[in-house]
């Protein structure tokens, strides 16, 4: 029985995220006002037999805990 899972990886709060800043600055030029706190991260989708392994997989490879936070979203 495999589980479809999503892992969201984000830059840690407090660490400057130049990609997020670039997106945020581009929006007013397109006429979209009032958007703040933009951060750009990664989405990783996978099928896994043992979802209990996911935290270790995230800490060891998918995210670098020094600079990134991760969130595991399992689909039913």
């Amino acid at each position, binding site marked *: 029985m495999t589980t479809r899972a999503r892992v969201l990886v984000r830059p840690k709060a407090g*660490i*400057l995220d*130049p*990609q997020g800043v*670039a997106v945020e600055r581009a929006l007013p030029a397109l006429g979209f006002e009032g958007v703040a706190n933009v951060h750009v991260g*990664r989405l990783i989708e996978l099928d896994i037999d043992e979802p209990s392994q996911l935290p270790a997989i995230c800490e060891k*490879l*998918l995210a*670098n805990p*020094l*600079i990134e936070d991760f969130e595991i979203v399992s689909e039913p």
Partner: protein
Amino acid sequence: MRFGVVRFPGSCDDVDALLACQRVPGASAQLLWHGDADLHGVEAVVIPGGFSYGDYLRVGAIARFSPVMESVIRFAEAGGLVLGICNGFQVLCEAGLLPGALLPNVNRRFICRQVNVEVVRARMPFSADMADGEVLSIPVKHTSGRYYAPAAVLESLEADGQIVLRYAHDANPNGSSNDIAGVTNAAGNVFGLMPHPEHAVEPLSGSVDGLKIFTSMAHAHG
């Protein structure tokens, strides 16, 4: 001194690093293939610049798990000299051999230019042939060169003298914390830097300052 230069899929400065090592009087150098866990008896390891494994996931993240790196980690833990340049620096941070991480440049651009770096700590294995306060002219070329470490780690790096090179005043090209251009581990036998010393070994290219890192390693090894 026998240098070994690691070649990953996507390494691009491996040959320049090999040639730089070979300029050290009395030294020889050979390539080490990423899939081969045997270090072939080399006495120092260089992890060169490039885009190992396409920089997939995060810079340095995949290279860290290659067979050669498991051996490099054991070599470093036994006190062997390991130099990581640019992508090599990123790989060493991902491998946990050096503190911190390298983030995208503050200006989000690829930066390729000559920079001045100041020797903060001479007479270390990688700075044996330098003087404190000496300024070296070495090129940088990277997109993710912003050195980051948590405040407590930066404090201990400063207090323990692990910062060997800093970008000179107003020359920090990427937003690195504390202007850090190159750091060692606590034991001093692993060194990573973003500037490319292997591109500064030939008078025709404008500077030979980079050669001092390679000669220092040979002198430290004795």
